């Protein structure tokens, strides 16, 4: 796992967006896997990434025309058109501003008649396009990824989840401060869905997420900090700002800062593709817990 540390949230966004654009541009389509497949999150941490990706698109540095996306999660019980739906978030902050083909942008449908089937179909769809090349994620203060709250199985796949009371309370600010209006359920990809991606990038920014970062990378893998599952991923990267490193040991921070330049040198010498674990083997050996 790599840990990249940048000064602030917007530098984290710029680094990550540039990295993703590079991956999209380097992608070599094959018959079984003709499109670059990107997993995407909602929330405040990824916003700077979306801003920068839009900027790169406007400057003709990247195109999403052939990119397929899968979002992590969506509420159950509010329409797509609701301003707080994740469909709205993605449309307003990203999809409406780039050249992605609407047919290639997938988000779980929280309005589906059969929610179990919706989740199963989502996994099948991901499989059918050749799996996810790069999954971008953020985390909550308790280290949860997507709606996989503490205690979620690290081997979980896409499914329905009942939201924790704390999450409902935290979300009430988006629903007129009325707990009754906050959705109580969501559809979410599982930890194993994320970890099956060939590459995983987790954004962690802000002082309030410092304990989660420390718990997730300095301690053992633990279902109470679900993002800690990245410790088992062969090609994962955490991008954090300085504030988020406050609870890490000085040694940890120094170590990762020192190897960042080494990694860059090696990439320059061998090219990124040569350093990356072989795609097929990763996908076949998706985490076994």
């Amino acid at each position, binding site marked *: 796992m790599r840990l990249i540390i940048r000064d602030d949230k917007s530098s984290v966004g710029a680094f990550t967006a540039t990295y993703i654009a590079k991956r999209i541009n380097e992608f070599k389509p094959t018959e079984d896997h003709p499109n670059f497949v990107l997993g995407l999150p909602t929330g405040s941490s990824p916003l700077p990434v979306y801003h920068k990706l839009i900027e790169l698109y406007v400057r003709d540095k990247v195109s999403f025309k052939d990119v397929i996306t899968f979002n992590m999660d969506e509420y159950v019980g509010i329409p*797509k058109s609701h301003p707080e739906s994740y469909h709205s978030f993605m*449309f307003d902050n990203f999809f409406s501003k780039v050249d992605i083909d609407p047919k290639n942008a997938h988000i779980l449908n929280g309005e589906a008649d059969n929610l179990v089937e919706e989740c199963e179909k989502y996994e099948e769809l991901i499989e059918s396009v050749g799996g996810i090349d790069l999954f971008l994620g953020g985390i909550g203060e308790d280290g949860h990824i997507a709606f996989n709250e503490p205690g979620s199985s690290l081997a979980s796949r896409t499914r329905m989840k009942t939201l924790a009371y704390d999450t409902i309370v935290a979300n009430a600010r988006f629903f007129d401060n009325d707990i009754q209006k906050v959705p109580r359920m969501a559809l979410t990809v599982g930890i194993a869905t994320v970890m099956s991606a060939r590459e995983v990038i987790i954004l962690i920014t802000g002082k309030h997420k410092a304990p989660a970062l420390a718990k997730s990378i300095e301690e053992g893998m633990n279902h109470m900090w679900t993002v800690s599952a990245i410790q088992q991923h062969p090609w994962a990267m955490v991008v954090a700002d300085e504030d988020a490193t406050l609870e890490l040991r000085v040694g940890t921070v120094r170590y990762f800062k020192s190897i960042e330049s080494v990694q860059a040198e090696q990439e320059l010498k061998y090219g990124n593709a040569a350093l990356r674990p072989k795609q097929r083997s990763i996908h076949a050996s998706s985490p076994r817990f």
Partner: protein
Amino acid sequence: MRVLKFTNCYLLQEDDSLKKGDLYVDIERGVIISGKELFFTAKEYPIEVIDLEEDILSPGLIDVQINGAYGVDFSLWPPINTENLPRDQQIAAYLAGLDKVSAKIVETGTTSFLPTIITQQQDLYRELIPLLGPRSSENSAHVLGYHAEGPFIAHSRKGAHAPPFLLTAPNGVSSIESVYDSQTTKLETPNTGIKLLTMAPDVEGVAESIGALAALPDVVISIGHSDATVELAAKSVRDGARFITHLFNAMPQLHHRDPGVIGLLGNQVQRPFYGLIVDGVHVHPNAVRLAYDAHPDGCILVTDAMPLMDPHLEDGIHDWRDGRRLLKQGPRLYLENTKTLAGSASSLDECIRNMTEFTNSPSYAKALSCATYHPAQLLQLSNKGNLRVGSDADLVVINRTTGEVKSTFIKGKCVYGN
């Protein structure tokens, strides 16, 4: 579905603010659609994207009081130079005049209007009213119906209306219907044209009729050209009157013991909408501010424009009607050799710029609401005057720094500018 997307623009919101965003229009149906629905449900792209470079995108302007423009007088029957022609040619000439205004007025950002007919000889109403039903010609502003100003108005507040034709309503509603009903149209029948009736509750028989008239589906009653006391005016509002015609003009000045019609702006419960001619002449900027500050949500900008309203017309003496002539001096129009103001020659976009200046507004948003959302509310039109999904794509692009109209769209089609 063929969709046009406006991007990089400030959209007028219903709370008088501007919000950066995109707007999607289905150009086949001419209505505003949800971009999100297009993306997630239809899974389609817009076929055209227009970058508005940070200008304002507003619903098209709605003028509820306009007597004529571009040399056309809506109140003149038979139309000019058709006195000796057969009736069907007179009708054709009148409709051609209406279409001429509809086609040209889009340059002022106006996409809907109510041709306003001032007091007429009684039998002429039967000729004019059947011609003033809702009308939408291609590439032109919509005629929503008509506004009849008079003949049930007070002699003492006649303004430029012809005194011999003013009427009272001794038999109440039936006196009033006998003027406005024609062979083919009736006040009580929806969609035949009637939208707004300006009348004076102090004229015999009017006050008693307001309740019944206001209950008709398409009729909005406006108080105007009136010497009504504040009590009488307030009673008229309780009975259903919802508008004041050109506030401050053709009504007594505000007196603190009896504030009259103007005093309705201080009403405790229902405050009516009110029209303001913000041409800088009819109402002093301070009076504009007083009215607006008292009741911002009721303010509706009207041009009260005369046939001489034409942004391309020069100052000087011009023929009007019945052998009378008007003097045009900039935005001012006087009956020749008098100081009597005879309507205005300002366009609605000019009024918006004036209003923004007079009220020291930081943007054009508040003034735009007074010419879009407010008049639509007055006329109870839910599909015009706003940018909601499902509303008609009658739109105007306004330069964010100068307030000039850059382009106008009717039903999603560009009809002015580019």
